């Protein structure tokens, strides 16, 4: 794992294996009732050809982070208050719009959540794919059409020659998402951002689309930033994970670290809320409470009102402010709060985590079961 949490913006030379490096990104929305800090100091990086999963519940700032990277937010009301987004060492937040447009769809492409409404209803599918190809690859219309057919074939659409003449409403939801993927990949981007690409699709199609994205990624070597709230998808697809809560990264690590040895109580709660076979007939575990009001964030740790392990510093001090390379979770259980010590009743939580780690290294247990075992 190459990221550290809340790392100050450094001018160190970029590492060659890092494609996208987001540093201390803050995206605010100025609306009538005040300012919403939708993304509030987020840092992570994506390595070439690898997959980063961004997880968190609705409204935690995942999509806004993606749209900020694409620079697709309307400014105002949005404001990028601080931070850097380095694509191969170049800060794309400072690029003039003209050059940014050249990157969009060409070096960074994006797939959206709603395939039903993301295609323009009055143009044919082929028209919409070849439009980007003609623009970025500077090829003639005929060649662009041929490339569009190839792109459709790549995403597993049958009879692509016929399909390019069809309109979006003539295709099913899964086919439309395939078209979106074909469009996104048609210019062979270095980074593909997929914002909940399967949420709007039914379950059987979800698996197909994920499998498709993975196989294409392997073929083309495109790096993937996969935004999802589905931890099952994370377990299947990604190398590294970033967990977001209320506009911040609360935990990051490799997929094994985060899913098998969650440190942050929020991650632990997310994992515990996955239903499992052994739970038939029982109530689902939920994280109590709701995401805090964006206009009225709690003092101290954002998660403290919902946190079962809350103790004194959580209400007072913000665990995000970190000195150097601390632990990979923004939580006072895992770092030393100045002037506070962890009360004895909470040592348990760390013991439990250690137990989980031990179990994870020996036998393959699902994270949920590990939690259950620890609680017995």
């Amino acid at each position, binding site marked *: 794992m190459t990221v550290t949490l809340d790392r100050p913006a450094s001018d160190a030379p970029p590492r060659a294996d890092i494609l996208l490096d987001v540093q201390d990104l803050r995206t605010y929305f100025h609306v009538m009732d005040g300012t919403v800090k939708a993304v509030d100091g987020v840092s992570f990086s994506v390595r070439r050809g690898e997959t980063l999963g961004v997880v968190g519940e609705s409204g935690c700032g995942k999509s806004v982070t993606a749209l900020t990277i*694409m620079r*697709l937010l309307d400014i105002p009301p949005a404001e990028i208050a601080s931070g850097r987004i380095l694509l191969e060492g170049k800060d794309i937040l400072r690029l003039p719009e003209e050059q940014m*447009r*050249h*990157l*969009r*769809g*060409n070096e960074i*492409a*994006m797939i*959206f959540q*709603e395939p039903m*409404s*993301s*295609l*323009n*209803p*009055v*143009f044919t599918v082929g028209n919409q794919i070849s*439009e*980007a190809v003609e*623009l*970025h690859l500077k090829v003639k219309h005929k060649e662009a059409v041929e490339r569009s057919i190839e792109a459709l074939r790549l995403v597993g659409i049958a009879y692509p020659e016929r399909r390019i003449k069809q*309109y979006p*409403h003539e295709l099913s939801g899964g086919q439309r998402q395939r078209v*979106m993927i074909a*469009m996104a990949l048609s210019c062979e981007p270095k980074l593909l951002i997929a914002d909940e690409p399967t949420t709007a699709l039914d379950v059987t199609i979800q698996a197909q689309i994920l499998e498709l994205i993975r196989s294409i990624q392997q073929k083309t070597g495109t790096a993937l930033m996969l935004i999802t709230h589905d931890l099952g998808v994370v377990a299947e697809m990604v190398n590294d994970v970033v967990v977001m809560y209320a506009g911040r990264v609360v935990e990051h690590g490799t997929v094994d670290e985060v899913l098998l040895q969650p440190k942050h109580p929020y991650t632990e709660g997310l994992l515990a809320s996955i239903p499992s076979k052994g739970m038939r007939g029982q109530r689902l575990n939920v994280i109590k409470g709701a995401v805090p009001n964006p206009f009225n964030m709690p003092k101290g740790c954002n998660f403290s009102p919902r946190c079962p392990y809350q103790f004194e510093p959580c209400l007072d001090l913000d665990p995000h402010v970190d000195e150097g390379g601390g632990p990979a979770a923004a939580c006072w259980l895992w770092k030393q709060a100045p002037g506070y010590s962890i009360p004895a009743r909470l040592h348990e939580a760390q013991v439990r985590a250690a137990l989980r780690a031990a179990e994870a290294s020996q036998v393959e247990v699902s994270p949920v079961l590990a939690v259950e075992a620890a609680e017995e």
Partner: protein
Amino acid sequence: MGRYILRRSVQAIPVIFLIAIVSFMLMQAAPGGPAAAFNQNPKISQAQIDGWLQRWCLERNPDVVGMLREFGGWLGVYNCSGGGLASSSGMPNFLPAFLGGGSNGVLHGDFGFSIFTGQPVLGMILERLPATLVLTGTALIIWITLAIILGVIAAVKRYSLFDQAVTLFSYIFYSLPTFWLGLILIYLFAVDLHWLPAQGIINTRSPFSFNTPAYWTDFWKNPGPALVVIGQHLILPVMTLVAVSVAGDSRFVRSSMLDTLSQDYVRTAKAKGLSQRTVIFRHAFRNALLPILTNIALEIAFLFSGAIVTETIFDWPGMGRLYFDGVTNRDYFLLMGILLIGSILVVIANLAADVIYAWADPRIRY
């Protein structure tokens, strides 16, 4: 497509028939009647009036049966010269003449005569149509162009100073009564500044009336200056119509455009790296145009019906004035003629709107 148009045309027949009945009933409900217009005229005897009324199945105080007779006579189902529902040859009156039907009524292409002028209704309408087409056509082209330009810019630069200004002036002009705005324009540009003529379509000193054979003979001798004269007379009434209509339509274009600009596919287009112009015009405007097209097609009916208030204020010799005069004189046949032709045109415009929509939106199938 052809079958669709045919089906819709057949469906339109009962609609037009219903419109004719309703407008006829409304006219009957209004106080006064054609006879009242003659009562004050000493040159016409009571016997003459009675003869006239009888010719058209009109009565001074008709009961329900009398009204039905009158409507039947206008329609061509009833034979006013005494045969009842049968024509003079004994066949049903509504049949075409070559099958032995009657010759009166709109079913036989007879729109009747104006009670006031005695001229055939159809001739009067055709005589007034060119002036109306010139006025409403010019106004329509200008106002739709302006409304689209203003609406699109206002939507793209939402909440900007430009948008606020367009909004403010839209509300002002939309709230202005046409007759007041027309009079103010006349006062300002004609009476006060002497820049433009106050009324009419050609100079008041011209020896010919507009759209008479003598006028056209004179027109073709020197078409350039004659057109300039018409153009000068057009400016004020067109300004009046445009100001009021742009106000409403630019709001419509703006909201339609705002609607499409917030659609997911516009975000997709931006994410492709397309330029702002391509995103706005190719992806957003192309979709925003769909409801606008429908609106425009419906406004085309207005081309023919004319602008009653504006034409009256500017003494424009068009359909709107003709209708206004018809109402004033209780000229039943003239009014029924204008209403019938107007409703047919509205139905055609509706059909055109649907066909254009289907052509512009690939999702529509019929």
